[in-house]
């Protein structure tokens, strides 16, 4: 086995835990003293840094939830001085305002280091040509993996998203050996290749895929590996934690959660109590060394289980299982998180349509397709087809801007969509993973 940082990755569990406790204690003291947000939270929760005397005491600390970030938009939770900030990333919020994440130089360094370890654990290294086909820019996937792959000395092809034929051309012509993208997009690349008479297995040098940002299954992995003749690894992370950070190792049996960076709890959603290894619950994460946007006991909303046993690869850091679902109504469309509340918020800003809508999600070929059906406001009706088409385009464009994902729009007659008395069920998800 080749490790990026063998001392850290193979450190005995007891030592790791001692390190985690020290980091946690330092973090809690720092935030109690320097962060208004965490200070007030801890006081309101009746907990003082002196109460944290062993690692298990982490449960005494209050949770942090996604809406805390929105309510403190954009940077009220930040604990770094403005001149120490070197990066902002922005991801979708639950309604109008996005979630903003700031980074110091050390934050970027830890994030990159996490991915350097992860990519190495998947067998990627110097001499590999890595195509990063996640979105660059405000989304953390592109720049995150870009920096990670650059650190291990691979040749990085910053392909970003879209233009599948060109992606394929790059894979072929630039002799790409590893690709990072969403699992459904890789399948789409595979289908496009087939149509063009290209076999990923025989005609390309692709041997590794790092796939994430959306739920997928072991069946999908089997299919991808079989058809493309590659090894497919799962990657996990959200922008609140920094971005994508953790992958499976070559054992393909759970994500290694680097203990010096992340303290992971799996809790029972109803009781808030920790569940034993192997049992499912909501993942709660504390990022131990974040400077700009500290994260203590963040409720990720992801359902999974944890395994502390020693991995066959020799790494001592605990593993979490493939994600089993979400606790909320968040949808993941082509790797982008979408909340139905965002759609509602957006439609209410467009006078030509009403706030009644339905979302239908399908998988067309390998790709997610989201259709938003919306009612035309009677005052906006025109007998010119192009006017109606313009309204449809406007709705599509506005949603695209707000959600960062393109959607199909269908204009329905006023009054034709279902009305809900209780909790609205506006999403019909027909995808099979």
């Amino acid at each position, binding site marked *: 086995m080749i490790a990026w940082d063998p001392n850290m990755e193979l450190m005995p569990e007891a030592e790791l835990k001692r390190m985690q406790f020290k980091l946690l204690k330092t973090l809690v003291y720092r935030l109690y003293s320097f962060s208004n947000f965490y200070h007030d939270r801890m006081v309101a929760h009746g907990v003082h840094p002196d109460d944290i005397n062993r690692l298990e005491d982490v449960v005494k600390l209050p949770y942090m939830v996604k809406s805390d970030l929105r309510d403190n938009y954009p940077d009220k939770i930040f604990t770094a001085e403005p001149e120490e900030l070197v990066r902002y990333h922005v991801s979708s919020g639950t309604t109008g305002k996005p979630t903003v994440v700031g980074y110091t130089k050390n934050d970027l360094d830890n994030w990159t280091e996490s991915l350097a370890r992860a990519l190495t654990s998947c067998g990627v290294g110097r001499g590999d040509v890595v195509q990063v086909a996640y979105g660059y820019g405000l989304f953390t996937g592109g720049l995150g993996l870009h920096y990670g792959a650059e650190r291990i000395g691979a040749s990085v092809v910053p392909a970003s998203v879209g233009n599948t034929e060109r992606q394929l051309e790059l894979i072929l012509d630039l002799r790409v050996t590893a690709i990072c993208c969403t699992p459904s997009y890789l399948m789409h690349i595979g289908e496009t290749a087939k149509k063009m008479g290209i076999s990923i297995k025989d005609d390309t040098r692709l041997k590794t895929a790092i796939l994430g940002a959306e739920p997928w299954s072991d069946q999908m992995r089997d299919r991808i590996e079989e058809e493309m003749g590659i090894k497919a690894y799962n990657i996990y992370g959200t922008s609140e934690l920094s971005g994508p950070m953790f992958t499976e190792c070559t054992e393909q049996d759970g994500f290694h959660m680097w203990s010096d960076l992340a303290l992971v709890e799996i809790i029972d959603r109803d009781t808030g109590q920790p569940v034993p290894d192997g049992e499912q619950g909501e993942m709660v994460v504390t990022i131990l060394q974040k400077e700009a946007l500290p994260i203590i006991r963040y409720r990720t909303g992801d359902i999974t289980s944890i395994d502390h046993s020693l991995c066959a690869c020799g790494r001592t850091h605990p593993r979490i299982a493939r994600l089993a679902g979400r606790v909320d109504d968040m949808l993941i469309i082509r790797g982008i998180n979408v909340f139905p509340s965002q759609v509602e918020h957006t439609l209410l800003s467009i006078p030509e349509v009403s706030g009644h809508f339905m979302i239908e999600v399908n998988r067309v070929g390998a790709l997610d397709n989201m259709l938003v059906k919306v009612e035309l406001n009677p005052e906006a009706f025109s007998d*010119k*087809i*192009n006017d109606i*088409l313009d309204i449809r385009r406007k709705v599509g464009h506005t949603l695209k801007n707000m959600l960062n994902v393109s959607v199909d729009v269908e204009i329905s007659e006023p009054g034709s969509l279902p009305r809900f008395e209780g909790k609205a069920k506006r999403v019909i998800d027909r995808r099979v993973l």
Partner: protein
Amino acid sequence: MDTTQYTIKQISVFSENKPGRLAAIAGALQAEKINILAFSIAEANGFGVVRALVDKPEAAYEKLNAMGFMVSFTDVIAVKMRDVPGGLFEMASILSEAEINIEYSYAYSGREAAVLILRVDRVDAAVEQILARGGTLLSADEFS
């Protein structure tokens, strides 16, 4: 059942969305003494399609084609409607019950009756249903 006698040849002409195109088409047909019986324009992004029923479709096709227009034939049917309230409803109901989709349609009110021109997804089924339910279809001969 042979439905060919009820299949009518509509000419469809591509036209850029700019002044003078319709005049050019109509002028050409006039020069050939071709009579336009029914006609509509469908609009799209920057262009349109002129659809017409004419008394001499072959001659119209040749003339317009020779002038450089893109022309094609499309099979449509023409239904006689009673020119009274409910006339259109009768026809639409027949097609709806047989689950035949109307792709587009236009109409004219003639001397004896109103005529509805239909482009449907299943021509044969539409002809059978309309005749079976006592409707009257115009045959191709009646247009020449």
